[in-house]
């Protein structure tokens, strides 16, 4: 692992709460990670685990009823929370850019693709409109859209879902950012298109040496793109490990359960091993490990107090069973 290099994005002990009728609901409880340059981190979690909220908080795009109640997010050592709106604008898109889940909903339907692509370029770079158009056409070609010059005149409805996502990627990469945050970028797409988009992101990421945070609920997608995987459950990091190790030898009972419960593609099985119960609803505060009610190995200790992240051989696991190994 390239742990020696300075992390480009660092999240430290991040806490996020939502204000709701019932009071304050903690959605993220102390998330920490460091993203080194040129690496891809996959954040994997089920619905309600806080994975999207964490992504939005990086660029301060949280909805008004959510607020960061603790911790900090640093880009190259500067705390993003302390920046003024003007300073943040230069970082958004320019240094850190984002791709969202639903490509069709993230594009403006009444502007042409060309207008939307050049808008990004003109807002951040000093260049003439013609130059911006030429640059936009180059970007479209780079993401594999044929006849780019002509397609700049077209509107989002004339593009298929996969093509829209390519446009979103082109837009996100327009200013060669250092960090790409991709929030479920292939969930709305068909599998053949998903495979193409994943390959494209991976290829562009390797070429440009960009770092990426890849948010997904799909473990297989994480396996396809990530160097490092972080498993979120109920707003907490349960396990973080290099991708290969995590999939080959998951240490946390939740990760083990998740991987076992996936229907295998390679052979037919008669019964799937399951994790009993269902994921907790945010705000259902409880003492102890959040996974304890579903965990086959849970002991009294697990129900009493939440384990810290135990570190061993460059892996982190939030489970009392790993205490002896750490």
């Amino acid at each position, binding site marked *: 692992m390239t742990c020696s290099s300075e992390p480009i994005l660092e999240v430290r002990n991040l806490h996020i709460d939502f204000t709701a009728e019932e009071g304050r609901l903690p959605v993220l409880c102390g998330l920490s990670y460091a993203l080194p340059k040129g690496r891809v981190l996959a954040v994997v979690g089920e619905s309600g685990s806080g994975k999207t909220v964490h992504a939005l908080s990086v660029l301060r795009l949280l909805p008004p009823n959510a607020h960061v109640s603790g911790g900090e997010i640093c880009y190259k050592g500067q705390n993003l929370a302390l920046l003024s709106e003007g300073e943040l604008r230069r970082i958004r898109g320019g240094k850190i850019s984002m791709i969202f889940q639903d490509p069709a909903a993230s594009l403006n339907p009444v502007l042409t693709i060309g207008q939307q692509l050049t808008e990004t370029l003109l807002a951040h770079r000093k260049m003439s409109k013609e130059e911006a158009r030429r640059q936009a056409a180059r970007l479209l070609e780079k993401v594999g859209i044929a006849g780019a010059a002509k397609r700049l005149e077209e509107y989002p409805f004339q593009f298929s879902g996969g093509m829209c996502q390519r446009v979103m990627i082109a837009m996100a990469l327009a200013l060669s950012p250092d960090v790409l945050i991709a929030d479920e970028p292939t969930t709305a797409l068909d*599998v*053949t298109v998903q495979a193409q988009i994943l390959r494209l992101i991976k290829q562009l990421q390797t070429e440009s040496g960009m770092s990426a945070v890849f948010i997904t609920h799909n473990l297989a997608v994480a396996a396809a793109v990530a160097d490092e995987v972080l498993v979120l459950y109920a707003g907490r990091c349960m396990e973080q490990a290099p991708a290969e190790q995590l999939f080959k030898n998951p240490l946390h009972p939740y990760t083990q359960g998740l991987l076992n419960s996936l229907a*295998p593609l390679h052979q037919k099985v008669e019964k799937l091993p*399951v994790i009993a119960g269902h*994921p907790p*609803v945010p705000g259902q505060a409880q003492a102890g490990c959040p996974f304890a009610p579903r965990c086959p190995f849970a002991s009294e200790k697990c129900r009493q107090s939440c384990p810290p992240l135990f570190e061993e051989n460059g892996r982190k696991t939030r489970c009392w069973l790993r205490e002896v190994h750490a």
Partner: protein
Amino acid sequence: MNAPVQITHLYKTYTRRRWLGKNWEKPVLKDVSLTLEENHVLGLVGESGCGKSTLCKVLLGIEKPTSGQVLADGKDVAVLSKSEFKKLRRVMQVVYQDPYSSLDPRMTVRQTLSEPLDIHGLKKEPRERDAFLKDLLAAVGLSATQLERYPHEFSGGQRQRICIARALALDPKILVADEPVSALDVSVQAQILNLLKKIQTQRHLSMIFVTHDFAVARFLCDDIAVMYQGRIVERAPAEELFLHPQHPYTRALLAAVPSVQGPCLPPEELAEAPGRTDWACPFAARCAYAQASCKSNRFELKEIFPRHACACGVLPFATEKKKSA
């Protein structure tokens, strides 16, 4: 003995009337023929827009076929009267994709499960009804204490259990399941898949299972039909399909499915040949194996091995299978 579901040369075209000019027409199902065998699970696999949900709608009588015949339990669904359809509903039931929108939020579980029984006048005696509902809930893994609760008090997986219980209330022979696990969390999917499998075996259900996920299909299905643009391009027993996929589209789909154990086929490059869009074979525009013969001939679904049918004239992988056989 009739097959539970028999579909022959089914066409379905959605039309929108226009005041002037020609009507807007969108053919969604083209010449689909399928048989669901008794006590079997037939998987319909395909990407969005391939017509798999429309096929279910036609089968359930929600849409009328444009031409062709759909026999459910030996009855032609296109010509059934309302009262005959009501009878058919006791035999054929459905579970939908989204357990959030397919339950009435203002009905308790008891009301939801009682509705089909009331409509068909079954289990009228209160004590018998009560015992029946409790058994039903137990069969889908919920407890009797949950009968008086409302849908919002349940998680997604529990709601899908209620939907399954509702479908089972009339003790049907045929169950149509349209993507029943794709809206659920990963850790809950396995629970529902196990439940569907258990129920299918215990009750000897014949099931049509629509999914876009090959891994799920492999777990649950006996036979699989792969759809592309409204046609069935390949149909085979499930294991045969996974071990010897023949149609280039099936192979491309299988190769594209990401898996934590790595892909099950080497990545298959899909050709981007937009110039071939007017070719007779609908897949030619994306097919890496297309030949000149695909331009004018659309190959019908034809049995190439026993019980294994494929709609491709090139069959670039047929020799591979013969060798291994």
